[in-house]
């Protein structure tokens, strides 16, 4: 509205939905149709018995937009619960990436050394390449990927963020 750039906040929102056809399209369509940002979105079934999926979406906007996003999500018919993890106390956020680096000689050794420092695991190796698996906060993944760039970074595959509240409480 008035000052669109000011007080943009980043929020991680967890959404529990019926695992039914089209539910992901409904959520994504809501974001694109109303002009909201999606920085990351992940989805998978988490409760097979009740057929529920959990969507973790990282979005950004002014506080008023964030409130709107949550209200719009919660009025979708197959949505059971919407939790703004960023607002509801401490939470853990993790992402996984598979990172392929090709090279020989010193660059190859250096990539392996850095992988060790960052606690990335080697999940595939040839004489001229590695595939590293790395789990952590998105920032840590970004830092590692930036370091690999000059060392022969070939491609990256990332899962997007998953998140959960700390402590004994349940969703």
């Amino acid at each position, binding site marked *: 509205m008035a000052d669109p750039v000011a007080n943009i906040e980043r929020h991680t929102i967890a959404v529990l939905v019926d695992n039914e056809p089209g539910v992901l399209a409904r959520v994504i*369509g809501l974001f694109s*149709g109303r002009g909201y940002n999606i920085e990351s979105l992940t989805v998978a079934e988490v409760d097979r018995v009740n057929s529920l999926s959990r969507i973790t979406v990282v979005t950004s906007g002014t506080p*008023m937009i964030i409130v709107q996003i949550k209200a719009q999500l919660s009025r979708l018919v197959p949505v059971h619960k919407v939790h703004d993890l960023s607002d509801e106390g401490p939470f853990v956020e993790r992402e996984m990436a598979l990172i392929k680096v090709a090279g020989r000689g010193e660059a190859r050794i250096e990539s392996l050394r850095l992988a060790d420092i960052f606690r990335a695991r080697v999940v595939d190796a040839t004489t001229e390449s590695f595939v590293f698996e790395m789990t952590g906060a998105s920032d840590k993944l970004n830092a590692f990927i930036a370091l690999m760039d000059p060392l022969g970074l070939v491609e990256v595959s990332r899962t997007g963020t998953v998140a959960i509240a700390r402590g004994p409480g349940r969703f």
Partner: protein
Amino acid sequence: MSAEPICGADIVIKALVDQGVDVVFGYPGGAVLPIYDSLFKQNALRHILVRQEGGAVHAAEGYARSTGKVGVVLVTSGPGATNAVTGLTDALMDSVPIVCLTGQVPTHLIGNDAFQEADTTGITRPCTKHNYLVKDVADLARIMHEAFYVARSGRPGPVVVDLPKDILFALGRYTGPETGRHKSYRPQTQADPARIDEAVALIAAAKRPLFYGGGGLINSGPEACARFTELVRLVDAPCTLTLMGLGALPASDPHFLGMVGMHGMYESNMAMHGCDLLIAVGSRFDDRVTGRLNAFSPTSKKIHIDIDPSSLNKNVRIDVPLLGDCGEVLGALLSAWRKEPRPEASPGGRSHAAGGAARNAWWRQIDAWRARDCLRYDRGRSDLIKPQYALERLYALTRERDPYITTEVGQHQMWAAQFFRFDKPYHWMTSGGLGTMGYGLPAAMGVQIAHPDALVIDVAGEASILMNIQEMSTIAQYRLPVKVFILNNQYMGMVRQWQELLHGGRYSESYTAALPDFVKLADAFGAVGRQVSRPDELDEAIREMIDTPSAFILDVAVDQTENCFPMIPSGAAHNEMLLGPEDKAESPVSEEGMVLV
């Protein structure tokens, strides 16, 4: 649960009957032939054959809005479904409960680019409240009932059920409406009691309160409207209504200021600008209502009752949001209000005792605004019918008959909203949110089906009426006595008005050069037509129209250059209204205003 398995098409019909449906608006085609076959074999359901699927949805909307029931539509796959999209979007914007059954190609052909295949659930996902593709006949009965539950619960809206043809032939077991309560969808209907007390305290303390009711009141039902009226009278505060809310408070009530918004009354908009407490009930702070947001009602605290959480705090910051059904929340407000002894307001009148001196000053201010007589217009020429005059006369000559009014979209729609005064809900059907030209005629058809003996008038423009004119054929088939009152200025009037005010009078493509002869057109469709162009013939023509037992088109040639006032120019605030052509010179349309719709 019925013991014998029956075919999917029979399950559909049985579910409709058990949901209390008596009328279905539809158009057959290959994919829905099994349902038409089942329809043929029963008598509980009446099918109204429209001439285009878009007409079916608007007819169902008219039926739903004039009865409070769910409107039902039946169309075929592909083009049948895509033709329904405008009506579905219209119903979504105006929160009209609709269940639309669409045919689909057999499940094994889905995704195969089969004949008359369209991705109906994909296309309608953003223009429905919810939609379903039935892939197993075992789910069919539950989904049918669930569709009705979703359409009418919470904020009502359109629901599509996409029915592949093989599912309609397949045998399955029927289950009753009790199976259709969605497993998790439970809109909150009761507001937080602490918030109710907060709201009552604000209302009691307000010096310049204003009620602002909307279509949510109508959706909540006559009981909610009665409670709203009661609260307005108890608090003795002025009240304005949105385009969609007309009829929620009797227009004859002295607390009523008239419609609010872009073409609303001067007193309503000035009151909204000047109030210190705004009590919004089932209204959504739409851009047509608020004008420029950063100048909207700058000195007021705001209470907002709405059943849709996403309506609260969407455009305007709310001090006391009350999430719940209008009727329920108003009931709670009324009982909380009565707990304390309050000064009596005289029943039905304005004693102004409630609120004391400050309230009296507020009413005096409102009376001063009212005295501006914002609907006045130039009656100078006696040889031309002014569109406002035409509607004044239509209202005066029909009000005794308690008419149902539908409209198309444009100037005539705004004039109808200004000059008709509705004392009851369910009598005013117009396309507010989407602004769909072509809505009025099929909607009037749906209203007439629901109220066969009532006077139903479509107030139309000559451009809008041509958008769904084919429905005259449906009107003929069912001998519906729908009256069409065309304000014919040969222009798309609202487009012309904006071109005059914003685009230097360059009337690009807004003139219709080859209009039909509406009298002959009426005749061709088995209706009666009449053309009138002189003010002194108007009353007699209107009387002929309402006394004619059949459908009637009255083509009223009106002043081509008349503009609709008052008007808040786009991008302007409520206190920057234009009251008439004389205000035009200093038209405060800003550059930001130009780019707004």
